[in-house]
């Protein structure tokens, strides 16, 4: 047949496989060595508990309230924090989009990312601590006292630190989605008689929803794996004993790597369920380009 005479290289190129494809190899190897292998190893390890049964670790986890309650504790932190960041980021992004000094504002808002969670936590311990400026100011104003307002070593300490470190990330993503919507669409809606609230409801929100879903997922995953601030700013023995702390203790305090792996798997599964759920809901919305024409 004639097909035989076409060189292999040409046939591969027709399927999009050519020299450039080779550039993927280093990243693929890295992914294999640093993610796929350790993940598979952990997955297999989680099915080899100390007692020798197959599901021992998982039975153990879901029968011990000290362990399974960490799922709820973590969700109780991650979901409200992510929602708050998202709800705060949308109006700020709308305002910043129209600003002339957009870059300056963005830089200031994004600064906390560069500081890292530990530095933020240390700062907060001083600022929000019993002898910190915040509480002292409240005391002077007569609004509160070190005994009535506690913002560190509890739920709120971790909550605040997640807001501070998570907001810039959420904001940046939101800003890019908001800027992606053609200004002419808003103008068109206005000439047709839509007031600001109606424009937001009928034009912006439906076009933004898919992007906000992605932003929610990424921000949520970040918040869900909270560890340093839960230890430094929270009450790691009780109210902020998040799932990553449980995994850490299993691995490095009980030296039960198998249980630790199982906890990590459960942690991953919870994240996956939330992310998949949110992404599926995205299908309810229009997902094409947010411009007014073919361009």
């Amino acid at each position, binding site marked *: 047949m004639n097909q035989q005479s076409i060189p292999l290289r040409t046939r591969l190129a027709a399927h999009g496989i050519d020299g450039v494809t080779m550039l993927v190899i280093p990243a693929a190897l890295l992914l294999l060595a640093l993610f796929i292998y350790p993940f598979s190893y952990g997955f297999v390890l989680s099915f080899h508990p100390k007692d020798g049964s197959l599901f021992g670790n998982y039975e153990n986890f879901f029968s011990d309230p000290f362990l399974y309650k960490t799922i709820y504790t973590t969700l109780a932190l991650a979901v409200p924090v992510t929602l708050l960041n998202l709800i705060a980021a949308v109006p700020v992004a709308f305002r910043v989009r129209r600003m002339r000094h957009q870059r300056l504002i963005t830089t200031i808002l994004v600064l906390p990312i560069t500081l890292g969670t530990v530095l933020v936590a240390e700062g907060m311990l001083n600022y929000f601590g019993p002898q910190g400026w915040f509480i002292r100011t409240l005391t002077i104003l007569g609004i509160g006292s070190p005994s009535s307002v506690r913002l560190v070593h509890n739920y709120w300490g971790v909550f605040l630190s997640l807001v501070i470190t998570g907001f810039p990330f959420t904001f940046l993503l939101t800003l890019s989605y908001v800027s992606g919507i053609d200004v*002419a669409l808003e103008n*068109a809606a206005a*000439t047709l008689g*839509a007031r600001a609230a109606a424009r937001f409801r009928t034009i912006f929100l439906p076009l933004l929803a898919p992007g906000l879903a992605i932003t929610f997922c990424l921000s949520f995953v970040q918040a869900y794996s909270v560890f340093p601030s839960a230890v430094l700013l929270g009450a790691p023995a009780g109210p902020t004993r998040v799932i990553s702390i449980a995994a850490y203790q299993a691995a490095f305090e009980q030296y039960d790597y198998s249980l630790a792996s199982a906890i990590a798997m459960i942690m991953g599964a919870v994240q996956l369920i939330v992310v998949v759920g949110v992404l599926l809901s995205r299908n309810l919305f229009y997902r094409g380009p947010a411009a007014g024409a073919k*361009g």
Partner: protein
Amino acid sequence: MDTQTTFQSLRLEKVGRTFGTMNALQDLSLEIKRGEFIALLGPSGCGKSTALNCIAGLLTTTSGSIWLDDKRIDTLAVEDRGFGMVFQNYALFPHMSVRSNIGFGLRMRGLPKADIEKRVDEAIRTVRLESQAHKLPGQLSGGQQQRVAIARAIAIDPPLVLMDEPLSNLDAKLRLEMRREIRRIHKDLGGVTIYVTHDQDEALSLADRIVVLRDGVIRQVGTPEDLYLRPAHIDVAEFMGFRNRFDGTLIGGKTVMPMNGASADFDGTIFEGVAVNTLAVGAVTAAIRPDDLVPVTARAKGIDALVESIEYRGHDFFGTARTEKNIELFFRSDRTLSAGTKIRLGADPAKVLFYNGASV
């Protein structure tokens, strides 16, 4: 809505808009009667889009006022003006079907559902999109998207339809077709259409009156015939296709009144022509269309030049030539000429326009 459709005129009184220190629009005064099709014509940056956006309310004015009969509208918010606007990039809502796009303005007005359906059907029929009504904008061709944009703007039955270079994204054939459509729709509506364009052909063929803007200032307002035959300003002449311009000196030693004949010396070449404005003794500028500058015999009056290039354009040949003084000329010829040929180019004095002063 009855009061809006029975208005008599739209008046702009000394409307101005500045951006920082730049005057994008200065003292724009204009009265437009119901039923008129007005084109705002000018090169990019002349202020035509600024003017349109000020009327629409998308830009606030910095001076002057705009009136619909005796109702002042420049102080109203965009959404309260009720004008239909067609955007250059159409600005269709990508997540809504064609029907939904067209009905948007009516829904915002809180009309009963049955009314909305009826008027959307009407608008869809007007732009002949019956078979596409349930598609999303992304599934339509450029021309169809344009029709949706027009239907959406006219569905609210606006007293004023504003169009911002609506045909600039379409190919040549579709552009001619849509021109006819736009004219027909304007006639059907019976309101005012204000149409922004940089294309003089579009303005000439569509408009009842053309407003030529330059640097934010009105240069001329007139019918297409006025503008085509007697552009009042050298800038307008250039825009109307008078590509040849010569700087020269008036001969005769006395002032020439408008519409009288005059002759002038252009570096040794004498041209006879018609004065457009009052010519004072001294510098004058002559403007000639390429159409009217043709090869003449060696004994006739004309300007000598060497042919540089020539191209066939259906009926005639059009070419460029260069004089000894390095002036580029655009001319018409009924036969082809090879590059480097020495020719003399002349024009009928009735087709040569003289403007007072030097061209720059």
